[in-house]
């Protein structure tokens, strides 16, 4: 059974239709990449999946792990194993990264009917994962994303993914604003998370990230629709010819 099955999904923001009929099937363990020009609806798709207020589904359905995803509240979706890596991670002053991670993990563990981790257990758990992503104790002690560099913010997103161990990770432009070294660290973190059960949906503007994270499937999103799907060679074709070659062909 597919982990995620999106059928004819239409969604509007402020009365304006952004998604105009998306079909997408993700099997367990698969990595899908969604590429597309600015304004094509990539971020909207990620927000609709995560259940953000103001993103209204007008038509279609989303089945996730055997249940109607759209019927769940955002925190329930997180509890069910859906993770969204934000393009612009949010700052929360006064709340240490460590405290945030612990609160989030214990909230998600509650959904999974697992016991909360105490402070010592959690410290061990988070340090194992932080080391892999070059996240220092100092970063964990700082307020969440406050004063973090672009690279630190993105590494922090991947750390959150590693801590929460989602079933489906949607990574929205995780590569934006990263230099090549930071990109490698992030990609290694993502690759280390790949398992036969865990699926990922990687949203990106550029092919660059896909040099480091090999997708099983690539989709081109433009004007609220998936125009083409293919293997990883599609990403290279896009890199070479540009989005115009595909979106233009559609228009003509």
């Amino acid at each position, binding site marked *: 059974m597919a982990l995620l099955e999106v059928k004819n999904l239409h969604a509007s923001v402020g009365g304006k239709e952004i998604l105009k009929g998306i079909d997408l099937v993700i099997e367990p363990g698969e990595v899908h990449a969604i590429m597309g020009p600015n304004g094509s609806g990539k971020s909207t798709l990620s927000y609709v999946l995560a259940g953000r207020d103001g993103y209204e589904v007008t038509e279609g359905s989303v089945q996730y792990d055997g249940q109607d995803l759209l019927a769940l509240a955002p*925190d329930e*979706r*997180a509890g069910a194993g859906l993770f969204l890596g*934000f393009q612009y991670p*949010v700052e*929360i002053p006064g*709340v240490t990264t460590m405290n945030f991670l612990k609160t989030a993990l214990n909230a998600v563990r509650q*959904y999974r009917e697992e016991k909360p981790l105490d402070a010592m257990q959690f410290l061990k758990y988070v340090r194992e994962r932080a080391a892999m992503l070059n996240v220092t104790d100092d970063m964990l002690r700082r307020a969440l994303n406050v004063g973090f560099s672009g690279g630190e913010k993105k590494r922090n997103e991947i750390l959150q993914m590693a801590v929460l161990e989602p079933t489906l990770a949607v990574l929205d432009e995780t590569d934006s604003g990263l230099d090549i070294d930071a990109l490698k660290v992030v990609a290694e973190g993502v690759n280390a998370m790949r398992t036969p059960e865990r699926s990922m949906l990687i949203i990106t503007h550029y092919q660059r990230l896909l040099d480091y994270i090999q997708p099983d499937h690539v989709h081109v999103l433009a004007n609220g629709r998936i125009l083409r799907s293919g293997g990883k060679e599609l990403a290279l074709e896009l890199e070479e010819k540009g989005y115009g070659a595909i979106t233009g062909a559609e228009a003509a």
Partner: protein
Amino acid sequence: MAATTETVEQVQTLANDGYKHGFVTDIEMETAPKGLSEDTVRFISAKKNEPEWLLEWRLTAYRHWLTMPEPQWAKVKFDPIDYQDSYYYAAPKSDDDRPKSLDEIDPKLLETYKKLGIPLLEQELLAGVAVDAVFDSVSVATTYKKKLEEVGVIFCPISEAIQTHPELVRQYMGSIVPYGDNKHAALNSAVFTDGSFVYIPKGVRCPMELSTYFRINAENTGQFERTLIIADEGSYVSYLEGCTAPQRDEHQLHAAVVELITMDDAEIKYSTVQNWYPGDEEGRGGIYNFVTKRGLCRGRNSKIAWTQVETGSAITWKYPSCVLEGDGSIGEFYSVAITNNMQQADTGTKMIHIGKNTRSTIVSKGISAGRADQTYRGLVKILASAEGAQNHTQCDSLLIGDQCGAHTVPYIECANPTASVAHEATTAKISDEQLFYCLQRGLSEEEAVSLIVNGFCKEVMKTLPMEFAVEAQKLIGISLEGSVG
């Protein structure tokens, strides 16, 4: 039958009986009849077996109270208080036969304490906290007294101190907050029923946090607590005051007075968690909390620090202040005030710099939700004598929703050109992005709000003693339940 039930029934009986003359001599009565008069004042004083000077002081305060107008400058709205519609004295059990130890205390009363979560028997032992519990108006138990006595610390109900240490009480009571200070302070001076008294001798560091839990229980009984803390040269004490009250419908007046005084090199840290019934969502019921708190740093290099977490009450009117008289003395004020639904709070501080090189710090965090309205009102006054005085003030407001209000009213008066005064203020809202980010990580809306607000208050929360901080963090979450979504 529980003592509370008995008290309530007695109160109701008296209410039906109406006013009876001549009751003042009848000190067998457990409750003063409704209303305020010289007779009420005499009744309370007689009940407490007070010396003549104190009765005279109360009566002078009462007569002064009659002439004083209600303070009008706070940004709060409420109907005029009918002072004749309240009771001013209620005892849960006979005062003549005061218990000598916890064993003598009505087990049902102890049970009520437990239900209210007062750590009288277990938690004080675990936490090493001495508790002077105030039930209605009479202090019924003081623990850890011996341990404190060994180092010479006096920690007892103020009514007891009046009997056992009249010279200290007479010297200092009313010296920091005079009865004529404001109408609420005058009322308290006339009818205060009990409270705490603390004296820390020279050079003594109090071996434990001193804690008093105030509760209001009897129906329609105003509470008038009075606390006096004296820290002699080179001493230190940390004092905790925590308040909760069960749900009720009637407005209740609470007008407390707290006086602190530090001699040379002494320090008092005074922490409050205030969680009285705030009224329902439409603003019905709830406590009127009109409190006068002031500390005098009389000695050189002495220090007074106020920390308050104010989440309860329908109306809060409260300005814990420091008078920095001794050269090099330090005043601090850390405040978190949360107003939700229809709550109103006008709170802040006054820092009066008199001595040379005196320093003060003010950190105020106001959180407003629902249709609540909140004002920070602060005065920093630097007298001509306060050479080299310094103040830093930071006032931050956080709004939840779009129907609440937050106001900042800082007054600065500086009469010495060498002084430095800095004021920063910010106002922010909990953003949709922050909320969604937390939800996406699995937090419920309430958990998310609690986390964000606790982060916002962190600078203040970290000044609270550890065991209080945990309770206060939970309280912040509880106070804001239902404020989003």
